[in-house]
């Protein structure tokens, strides 16, 4: 019982903020639109799938001004899309085949800790396999990156990593088959900058990448 009380106190302190804020938010939404949550309860039909970094500074919905129900979200270290990763692959699969999203946005960000770690020649233990994917992106663009210095090189790897992940998504059977049939989803590569809080469009050319990869990766039958 004494333990129970102590625990209650602990939980009170540690969770008050999150629960209070949540309650306040829920009340605000209901005041604005009494049907708000009833509508959401009926299901989701988001137009977008967002694949972004886990970084706490880039809450996808907040920075795009979208509300609940509008964007399906996957976030991991350095917004990677690896073909043997069941986690991200099931997200892409579900979003494309079941939710039929129209756009897939891969969003990286300047100052990404994951990319920075991958640029550090060091054993990072459990993170090695994951970061290896970024190191591979570096290897693919070694010449271009080596010609750059410091921040410029770092920023460029962030961009190249996003483009590479867009390519990885386009390589999936789900995206290729849906695109052949419906002309969506379209894949976009963006980078968030802390300088101004704006998203930079890397102008990833979905059609061109698709044509390019289909020589080897065509999965549309």
């Amino acid at each position, binding site marked *: 019982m004494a333990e129970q009380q102590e625990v209650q106190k602990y939980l009170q302190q540690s969770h008050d903020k999150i629960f209070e804020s949540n309650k306040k938010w829920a009340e605000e939404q209901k005041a604005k639109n009494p049907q708000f949550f009833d509508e959401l309860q009926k299901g989701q039909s988001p137009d977008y799938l967002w694949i972004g970094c886990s970084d706490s500074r880039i809450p996808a919905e907040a920075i795009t001004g979208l509300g609940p129900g509008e964007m399906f979200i996957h976030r991991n270290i350095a917004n990677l899309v690896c073909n043997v990763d069941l986690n991200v692959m099931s997200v892409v699969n579900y979003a494309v085949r079941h939710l039929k999203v129209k756009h897939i946005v891969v969003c990286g960000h300047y100052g990404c800790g994951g990319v920075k770690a991958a640029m550090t020649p060091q054993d990072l233990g459990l993170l090695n396999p994951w970061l290896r994917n970024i190191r591979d992106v570096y290897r693919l663009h070694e010449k271009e990156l080596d010609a750059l210095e410091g921040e410029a090189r770092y920023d460029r790897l962030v961009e190249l990593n996003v483009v590479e992940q867009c390519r990885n998504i386009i390589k999936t059977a789900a995206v290729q088959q849906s695109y052949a049939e419906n002309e969506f989803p379209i894949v976009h590569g963006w980078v968030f900058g802390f300088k101004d*809080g704006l998203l930079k469009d890397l102008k990833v050319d979905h059609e061109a990448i698709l044509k390019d990869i289909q020589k080897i990766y065509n999965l549309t039958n």
Partner: protein
Amino acid sequence: MATAMDALDRIVEGNRIYAQKTAAKDPNAFLELSKGQAPEILWIGCADSRIPETTICHSRPGELFVHRNIANCVHADDMNAASVVEYAVAHLKVKRIVVCGHSKCGGAIASLGDADLGTTLNTWLHPARELRRRHKAELDALPDDDVRALRLAELNVHQSIDVLRQHPAVKKAVGDRGLTVHGLIYDIGAGQLRLLEDAAARGKGNGLWSPNRH
């Protein structure tokens, strides 16, 4: 229904407004953010579009480190989630991990049965479906699939927490500096979060109630 390009314009415009508003409120906001992150919480939630964690918690950018996947699962052999946990716990030193499931979860609903969803999703949901088989009697006794899916979502949060507790960085941080792991359920119909507290009923403490015991 908006056309494909309109949908995209919308978030580009939404971002412009976000950037303007944020800078208007605090001209140094982005400068501060650019210096780095020190989130206290790692949020592991569902990819479901209806649960934007930062919005529903009224949090600010910089407060929640986020991993979201189908049905907020943490599987022991998943390098994606394991890397997020490693980075958040060992490098960013978050103080708490929150696993948040929710009502009306598509992943939980799909796990109530064995419909073929393709190899990828079948494999991903396999542990949740196994969980359903292990709790068959309890789930069968519930009135309808809505309630069953919610209960399975709860069980799944506990399962994710059990896996998390075995993660080497989590184990170490729980012992060394009192990292705590919590289970939450978000009620989509009410917009509210609720703390899961039936850990004791499962016959063993999962640390939820006792931050310093492990």
